[in-house]
């Protein structure tokens, strides 16, 4: 009796095959897009028609339903990128590269949206577009880090090499982000009295929480859908490059 030593494919290894990944996740995209749209319709209906205006801020409180989910995503996407970076460095999982590359512009876009809606909200309520407050400042620096990562991806010709270098930078950034957050908080409490933000803000009534939660899930699912789509695009782009190279070498396709 011989020992069976043929390599076994786990689902994890199977997922590493781009073709398998495409085949497995392609049927997910349309349902995901459908659920996201439904959640957006529900959330926007709640936000515009079925939630009260704030007694102080009036209708501007509705900006919150876009602002808070995008601010959450700005950090969540970085976490997703850091996990993908670990996948690249530790397991050399080929799809971790793709996931890391797809997430960077999405994270930058969500962070920029959080900053933009924040300053649109800040103008009527605080009377200024920008305040050097701890949370805003660290979000701005996070945006710079995202843009740096996108620039780093674009600077490399060889995407496999780029993936490993970007992964190192992403992880170093992940270690640094809490330090930046801490130092900026220390700095902003030093420079100005904490009068704008209050940690013990008014507890939110349920009528505001329902649309917030719905929008929260809508935005998160939007990220998941766009991430999958971007990964598919990236896989196809890489396959195209390989095919072009082979064609240029004169191989039979």
């Amino acid at each position, binding site marked *: 009796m011989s020992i069976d030593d043929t390599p076994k494919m786990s689902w994890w290894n199977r997922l590493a095959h781009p073709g398998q990944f495409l085949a497995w996740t392609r049927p997910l995209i349309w349902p995901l897009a459908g659920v996201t749209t439904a959640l957006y319709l529900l959330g926007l209906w709640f936000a515009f028609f079925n939630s009260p205006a704030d007694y102080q801020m009036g209708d501007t409180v509705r900006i919150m339903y876009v602002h808070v989910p995008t601010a959450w995503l700005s950090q969540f996407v970085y976490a997703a990128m850091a996990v993908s970076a670990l996948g690249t460095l530790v397991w050399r999982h080929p799809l971790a590269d793709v996931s890391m590359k797809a997430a960077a512009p999405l994270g930058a876009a969500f962070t920029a949206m959080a900053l933009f809606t924040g300053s649109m909200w800040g103008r009527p309520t605080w009377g200024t577009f920008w305040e050097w407050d701890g949370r805003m400042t660290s979000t701005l620096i996070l945006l710079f880090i995202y843009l*740096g990562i996108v620039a780093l991806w674009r*600077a490399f010709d060889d995407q496999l090499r780029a993936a*490993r270098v970007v992964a190192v930078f992403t992880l170093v950034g992940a270690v640094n982000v809490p330090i930046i957050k*801490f130092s900026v908080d220390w*700095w902003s409490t030093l420079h100005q009295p904490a009068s704008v933000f209050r940690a013990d803000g008014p507890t939110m009534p349920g009528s505001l929480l329902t649309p917030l939660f719905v929008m929260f899930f809508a935005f998160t699912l939007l990220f998941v859908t766009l991430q999958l789509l971007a990964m598919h695009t990236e896989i196809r782009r890489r396959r195209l490059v390989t095919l072009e190279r082979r064609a240029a070498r004169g191989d039979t396709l």
Partner: protein
Amino acid sequence: MSGFLGVLRRDLRLSFSGGGEVLTLVLFFIIVGAIVPFAIGPDRALLASIAPGIIWIAAFLAMLLGLDRLFRPDRDDGTLALYRMADMSMAGVVAAKVIAHWLTAALPLILASPFLAMILAMDGPTFWRTVLSLLLGTPALAAFGAFGAAITVAIRRGGLLAPILIAPLCVPVLIFGVGAIAPLGGPDQASSAMLFLAALSLMSLALSPFAAALAIDWGEE
């Protein structure tokens, strides 16, 4: 250890003998500091109050400017490939280079800072706190800078990219560096900022050679 000292000695000799790069950096530092009064006006009180920030920004820019010569010449002439094949670990090479970078790009700036302090109307105690905070903080800038240079060394035109990547990571160094000088929060805050600055420097000096070595190894293969 002999390899470590060899790399250190080679880098020091190269930067002190070839073309006066060290003096160019010092000149850049002084010119950046001296150009600020033209932009904001010669009001002595205002200048004195923002002088620590000006000196820090000038040092920060000068150190970013010097990043490109950290690994790129070695890569162009093949030394980096030899380092990678050598017996000693890449992290050791990077650590030696970080120390050499600090000695040639940070220490001369600190030595030149009395001139800036004088023309920016700084008083004596503030100046000494500035020198102390620069001494404690610039090692962190050198360590982060070496990491940025290592990340971009494989890119042909990576010169501008390293400062863009590194500047956001250096924000804590600037915050605590200036916080250790400016008496905004009283002496208590200043001394705690000094301690944070020292902690940042020690941590980044200890960790960045490994991260930079990883980036070089994987970017080159």
